[in-house]
């Protein structure tokens, strides 16, 4: 790897238990700033669980225990004095199923900046909402119906609204948990295009079941299997010349 590349997230020896079950067996991974990193692997391999460790969404699950270090630009996000709520303003998340709030499109975007006191309601908020919607390439489609419910949009639009909502908080990292699995190919293409634009400003981590999507949209790919990180590297290398036999088997569809 080139030396000018900066680690956004540094994960060392991350283990995770659900009760007595060890779901992750010590993951070491560097996620580079300004890149799209894809996590692939068969169902139940721990890639979503791992993703949720990165903004501590797993904290909400009873009986879930994490060991190891996750450093955001050198700061341990599991340190005892870290405020989890504040952490999530730096590491935002987009979910599998589009989940806009059952409120207006405007309110969906304005909600988080308001509760974090980023801007006052009024022209500043209008501007922030527009910027977020523009960055998520959905402004042109919704600019005339900002007061309509976000839930009335199509699935793909809803997902872009959710991305806009995440952007509005101005996070450093955007985690995406299979963001296209509920969308049709056209909506998926739009989201992938969007990821390509967004990586100029944000570090993106995406979990996907779609090999082509990982190949198309990501710069780096990590292959997970049964709670272990099997292989990690540049996407072009992983897909053309995987060094691990299991990675190759999975990518070529021989199993998984």
């Amino acid at each position, binding site marked *: 790897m080139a030396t000018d590349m900066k680690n956004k997230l540094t994960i060392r020896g991350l283990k995770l238990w659900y009760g007595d079950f060890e779901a992750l067996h010590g993951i070491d991974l560097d996620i580079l700033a300004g890149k799209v990193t894809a996590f692939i692997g068969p169902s139940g391999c721990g890639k979503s669980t791992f993703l949720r460790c990165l903004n501590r969404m797993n904290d909400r699950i009873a009986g879930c225990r994490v060991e190891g270090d996750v450093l955001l630009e050198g700061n341990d996000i599991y340190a005892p004095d870290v405020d989890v709520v504040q952490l999530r303003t730096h590491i935002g998340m987009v979910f599998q199923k589009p989940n806009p709030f*059952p409120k207006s499109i405007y309110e969906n975007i304005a909600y*988080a900046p308001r509760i*974090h006191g980023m801007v006052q309601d009024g022209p500043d908020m209008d501007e922030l909402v527009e910027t977020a919607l523009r960055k998520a390439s959905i402004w042109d489609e919704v600019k005339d119906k900002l007061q309509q419910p976000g839930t009335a949009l199509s699935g793909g639009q809803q997902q872009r609204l959710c991305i806009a909502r995440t952007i509005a908080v101005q996070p450093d990292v955007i985690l995406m948990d299979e963001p296209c699995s509920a969308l049709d190919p056209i909506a998926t293409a739009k989201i992938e295009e969007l990821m390509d634009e967004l990586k100029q400003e944000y570090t993106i981590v995406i979990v996907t079941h779609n090999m082509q999507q990982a190949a198309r949209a990501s710069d780096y790919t990590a292959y997970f299997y049964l709670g272990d990180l099997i292989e990690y590297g540049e996407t072009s290398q992983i897909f053309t010349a995987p060094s691990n036999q299991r990675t190759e088997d999975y990518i070529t569809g021989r199993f998984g």
Partner: protein
Amino acid sequence: MSDASKSNALRADLRADKRKRRRARADMRFKWYGLTALGLAMLFLVFFFVDIISKGLPAFQQAEILVQVSYSESVKSNYNRAVDKRYRKLISRSWLRTIPMQLEEHPDMIGTTAEQWVLADYRVDQFLKGHEGHKLKKKYQKLVRQLQEEGKVRLAFNSGFFSNGDSKLPENAGILASAVGSVLVLLLTMLFAVPVGVMTAIYLEEFAPDNRFTQLIEVNINNLAAIPSILYGLLGLAIFINFMGVPRSSALAGGLTLALMTLPIIIIATRAALRAVPESIREAAYGLGASSLQTVWHHVLPLAMPGILTGSIIGLAQAMGETAPLLIVGMMAYIPEAPHSILAATTVLPAQVYTWSGESIRAFEERTAAGIMVLLAVLLSLNALAIRLRNRSEQTW
């Protein structure tokens, strides 16, 4: 097998034979069992409504007599002198009794006479309505018939039923005191049960860890909802009256006791409403850096609100119709006047109905039925409100 024989075999299989006909008959029978059960239930319901309404409807009319009333000075000390001796027995004592008080308030009336419609004795009322057991003496029957021919007897709208409290004289008995009591008790129940119940449910559903202790609480709440209501009366008596010293028979004692009874219903309904809010909404809020309180307050609670309201209204409607626990805290009382404070002796609609149903005078029977009609009307409107809210809550997200 050739095509022709295949087709023949298919035709034979499709044809209704004995076994298939039996299957069809069983289907039909099953349908009829269901219809019979439904018909039976409808029959009981219709019978109930016809009975109550036919008995209760006459109570909304009350007999009045047109008589000459003289407000002389001597009437102040003996109200019987106000009307001609001939008619005195036909007139309600409850009205005659008020004359000295009226004269006290309006001294300018003294010395005047007036021909006016006054409340008739309940025997006259029952006789006019053709009820058996009216107990009106033969000579008065004749007199009433005569007055009827002269147009001096009438059945007028019974406004007294809505503006009077309980009375030992049936013609004067009304539901005002118990209706006001019901409203007071229900308000107090709502004031205590809804906030406590909703907060408990929010804690259990959104914040509490899942451990032995919370599981124990959960099982107990579910059990409490199924406990015979009279036990809540005993609990209320022990806690509120004996221990806390809340006055017996008061709206406060009744409201608190019913709040105890309503709590589990509200908690269970609220938890169900909270659970119906999709997890994705919570994740969305947490993912944006909302705190637990913000997530619940801004997103979960507004979505659960229609369900919470529906559950609360159904719980309160049940509390409103409840009689047994109120017996124990002394609300089965004779209350002629509407309560003026939450510590004053109070009765409620179902208790009033129960009291009237035990009266020996037959004229109370129609008032009992009329009281039930009022109670049913209130309960049905509460339930209709709950259904409306539930329909409104059937939104998608």
